[in-house]
Every structure is written in structure tokens, then in C-alpha cells.
């Protein structure tokens, strides 16, 4: 029997377990998947928890519900990968050998990367919404908050779902409007990039949003430290911004196990071939989702498209064939803009997000790069699609793995 081992039973790992169960001969291959958690968190739901739009129970389910029969689910913490000898060491001392390894251990926040971020004000006036606990703590804070200066802040790139902070700012605007206290809240979006939107078409189509919602923006802000006493964030150029409430997206890093395995870059992301998804260092190690260093958005939709490609490439690898299936960087995501509307974007390595219709060229019903109610329902439906289609590894009808150029308004 040969062994294929999947590390992490989050979005990417779960999808791979389902794909491989169908694709591999059970007489030849034993499939195992490991996770330290027993709960699967629907992370896109973290955006909605602080505003009481979703309840905690809406976004958690047991991991084992999604792992198919015949796949061995291990509830263990991974200490490290010993790739040169093809085995994985668990924190409690056990180990497991593999012929093929799939790394799907995701990314997590590391607020300790910035001086003072995890200081006295952490979870008093400084919050994150990239963790389950953080999003709930922020929900409780927003319930009692009387207003003042709200900063929505990105520490550094890359982060999971890069548009989530902007969505947070839009939803905050809507939330405070409904609470009839928008006039008491000053919302400022602080980014290390040179704008809220950085691509030409998106800037052109969406620049109005910030103005319309009266959200201020501070660009090119590379945070150096947080001054807890005076409630200020300070950047390397000595710019200071004061806050009453700081909602930050801390540095995102791969799990420490990657560092212990000496397989990561300076943020513990695994150097990976961007088209084949094979690790650069070891031929029998593949990487899916947020754990890799490839220059795509760290998003569940990306992991979904990657899973289809990776399954084919693992079959190629097993049959000693060239890894000819190529990931094109396809990304598709809904962006909440508040007031019951959303945007939809669809792009890949070579094409920036543009206007058009989706998924049927010229028909829609979704509009690309334009606000609409239909897109908002798409965003809400994504949760159903996630549990019922993405995790089980089903192909989403009409949404091809490779990006469709038809129906899009390229120049």
C-alpha cells in the first residue's frame, strides 16, 4: 500500500481528501488527513460576525462531517515535516510516513510581529476579525461602542482574502448608519499599499465607493509600532495616526510547523511552483491554499480551482508523467459593499478584474466590478456553496477552473 498524507483539514485539505478519494484506487492508496482542530470554521463568515449578521453557530461544523469514508482522519498537532526522509512528526511524539505529501496548513495572524500590537490595548481597543475569537470579541465591543475614530488597518501583505478589510470598512459604514450613529464615527482605512484599489480598472470603477461612504484613506502606511498609551499607530516614516478603535489585520504567516521543518520563506509560506503546485524543494510534496507562497489571493475560491488542477497533477505524478495541468491563477470573489449590495470580481495571473457579466458571457446574471443586490445574494449563497459544493470537491456548474475571457470588457 502507498500512502498519501494531507496536512490540515481546512478548506484545501478537505477538498483534496474528497477529490483523491474519488480519483485513487483504494487497493493501492491509503489516504490520511491530519488536523489539530475538530471544528471546521467557515472563515469568510468572520467578516459578518462583528456586525451580528451571522451567528457563531452559522459558521462552524465538525471537520469529520466533510471527510469521506475511507479516508483516515487523525486529530493530532503536527510538529514538523522531515521531507528528506518522507515522514511527519507529531507534537505528541508519534510519526507517520508518506509517499506523497500535501501541505494544506493555511495561514494565521501573528500580531506579535508588530511592536505593541499585542500590548495592553489588545482586545480593549485593538481587535482583529481574522480569528473566530477576535471576531466575537469585536462584536461585543461594537455593541457598546459610542463612536469616535475607527481605523481599519492592514499591517502588511500578503493577507488572506485581501479585500476583507475594505469590506469591513463598508459594512461598518452601513452598520453605524443603521444604528443612527454614523455621524459620531470617523472611519479611516489604513493600508501599506498605494491605495484601497491598486489595479487601474478597479480604481476607475470603484474609486467612488470610499467617497460616497465618507471613508478616509491613508496610503503607503508601513506600520512600525503601536503606542498603547496614546492609542496611536506609527509608521517607519514617523507618521502617526490616533484611534479610539483599531480594527487591524495583523501580519499573516504560515504555521510555525513550516519554520520548524525549514521549508518556508520569511513568513513561513512554502515556495511552490505557481502552475503545477509542486513544492520547489521536494518532488513528492505539493502545496494547496494559503500555505503556499504563490502570488495569488489567499482565498477559498482559489483553493477550489487549485484542487481540481492538483488532483490531476497528483495522478500525473503517480503515473510518472509530466505535471502538465497548469493553474492559471483563477480567482473569483464577492465583495460586500454594504447596504445589501456587493461586487463580484473574476481574474487570473494575466488578466486584471474588469467589468462584464458572469458566469454567462453577455447574460449574467452577475455583474462584474459593479455593485448590485444580485451579487450580495451571491455572497450570502457562497456559504451554502462552501459547505455543500466546495468542501465535498464538487465542480461548480458553469464556473470553469480556467478563467473565461468571454463576457469581460478587456481593452
Amino acid at each position, binding site marked *: 500500500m502507498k500512502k498519501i498524507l494531507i496536512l490540515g483539514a481546512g478548506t484545501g485539505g478537505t477538498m483534496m481528501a474528497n477529490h483523491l478519494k474519488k480519483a485513487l484506487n483504494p487497493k493501492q492508496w491509503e489516504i490520511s488527513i491530519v488536523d489539530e482542530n475538530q471544528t471546521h470554521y467557515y472563515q469568510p463568515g468572520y467578516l459578518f460576525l462583528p456586525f451580528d449578521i451571522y451567528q457563531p453557530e452559522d459558521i462552524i461544523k465538525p471537520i469529520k462531517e466533510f471527510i469521506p469514508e475511507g479516508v483516515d482522519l487523525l486529530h493530532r498537532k503536527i510538529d514538523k515535516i522531515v521531507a528528506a526522509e518522507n515522514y511527519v512528526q507529531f507534537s505528541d511524539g508519534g510519526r507517520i510516513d508518506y509517499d506523497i505529501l500535501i501541505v494544506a496548513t493555511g495561514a494565521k495572524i501573528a500580531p506579535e510581529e508588530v511592536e505593541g500590537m499585542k500590548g495592553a490595548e489588545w482586545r480593549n481597543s485593538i481587535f482583529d476579525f481574522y480569528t473566530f475569537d477576535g471576531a466575537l470579541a469585536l462584536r461585543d465591543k461594537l455593541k457598546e461602542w459610542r463612536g469616535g475614530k475607527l481605523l481599519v488597518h492592514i499591517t*502588511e*501583505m*500578503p493577507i488572506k482574502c*485581501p*479585500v476583507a478589510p475594505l469590506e469591513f470598512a463598508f459594512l461598518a459604514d452601513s452598520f453605524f448608519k443603521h444604528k443612527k450613529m454614523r455621524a459620531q464615527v470617523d472611519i479611516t482605512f489604513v493600508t*501599506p*499599499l*498605494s491605495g484601497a*484599489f*491598486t*489595479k*487601474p480598472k*478597479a480604481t476607475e470603477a*470603484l474609486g467612488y465607493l470610499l467617497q460616497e461612504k465618507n471613508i478616509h484613506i491613508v*496610503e*503607503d502606511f*508601513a506600520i*512600525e509600532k503601536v503606542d498603547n498609551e496614546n492609542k496611536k499607530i506609527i509608521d*517607519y*516614516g514617523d507618521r502617526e495616526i490616533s484611534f479610539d478603535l483599531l480594527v487591524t489585520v495583523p*501580519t499573516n504567516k504560515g504555521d510555525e510547523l513550516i519554520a520548524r521543518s525549514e521549508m518556508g520563506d*520569511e*513568513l513561513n509560506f512554502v515556495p511552490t511552483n505557481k502552475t503545477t503546485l509542486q513544492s520547489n524543494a521536494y518532488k513528492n510534496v505539493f502545496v494547496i491554499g494559503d500555505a503556499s507562497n504563490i*502570488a495569488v*489571493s489567499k482565498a477559498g475560491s482559489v483553493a477550489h480551482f487549485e484542487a481540481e488542477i492538483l488532483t490531476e497533477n497528483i495522478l500525473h505524478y503517480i503515473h510518472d508523467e509530466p505535471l502538465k495541468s497548469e493553474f492559471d491563477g483563477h*480567482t473569483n*470573489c464577492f*465583495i460586500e459593499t454594504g447596504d445589501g449590495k456587493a461586487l463580484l*470580481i473574476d*481574474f487570473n495571473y494575466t488578466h486584471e*478584474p474588469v467589468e462584464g457579466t458572469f458566469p454567462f458571457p453577455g447574460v449574467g446574471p452577475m455583474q462584474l466590478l459593479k455593485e448590485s443586490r444580485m451579487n450580495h445574494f451571491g455572497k450570502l449563497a457562497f456559504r451554502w456553496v462552501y459547505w455543500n459544493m466546495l468542501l465535498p470537491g464538487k465542480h461548480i456548474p458553469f464556473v470553469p477552473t480556467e478563467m473565461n475571457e468571454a463576457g469581460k470588457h478587456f481593452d
Partner: protein
Amino acid sequence: MEKMISGKQVSVNEEGFLTDFSQWNKDIANEIAKEENIQLTERHWEVINYLQEQHRKEIPMSIRKIRNSGVVDIKEFYQLFPQGPLKTASKIAGIPKPVSCI
């Protein structure tokens, strides 16, 4: 769009970033730097060379990468290229500014 920079016709985007790295040369860098009120010194060139090296390897740039580069620390990086140093240095180096997905 097309622009004349130090006597050479080059393709640039709306913000004046070169869209074709192969058209870059040192004279162009000097001219863009002048527009940004920067007089390029030996130290500037070390940073520019580093950025271009990373660009050729398709490694996206960040403040953290600069910090770990061993080429320059962040305080000095801000002194060399005041206000949005990564953006300004990228522009002079003829490479795209760091972007997000939209």
C-alpha cells in the same frame, strides 16, 4: 500610454510606472528620480539593484522583504525614498508597484 523620458520613448501607465521593464535604463531612472525630487546616490542604486533582482525572480516586494534584505534598513529606506518608499523606489527601478487583487 507612451512617454518621452530622457530622450527615449517608453510605455508607462497612468501613474508613470514603466509597463515594460526591458525599456528601462539608468538615464530613465535618473529622470524619474528627479521628478520625485531625489538625487540618486550609490545607496539608492544598491536598493534599486536589489528590487530589480527580486523582480526578475518574480518575488513580490514588501517592506518586510526590504527589512530582511540586508541591503538597507527601513529607517534609511525612508530617508532615501521619502513618502511611500516602496512605491517610489519601484517606479525609479522601472518595475510595477506592489499591488493587491483589485
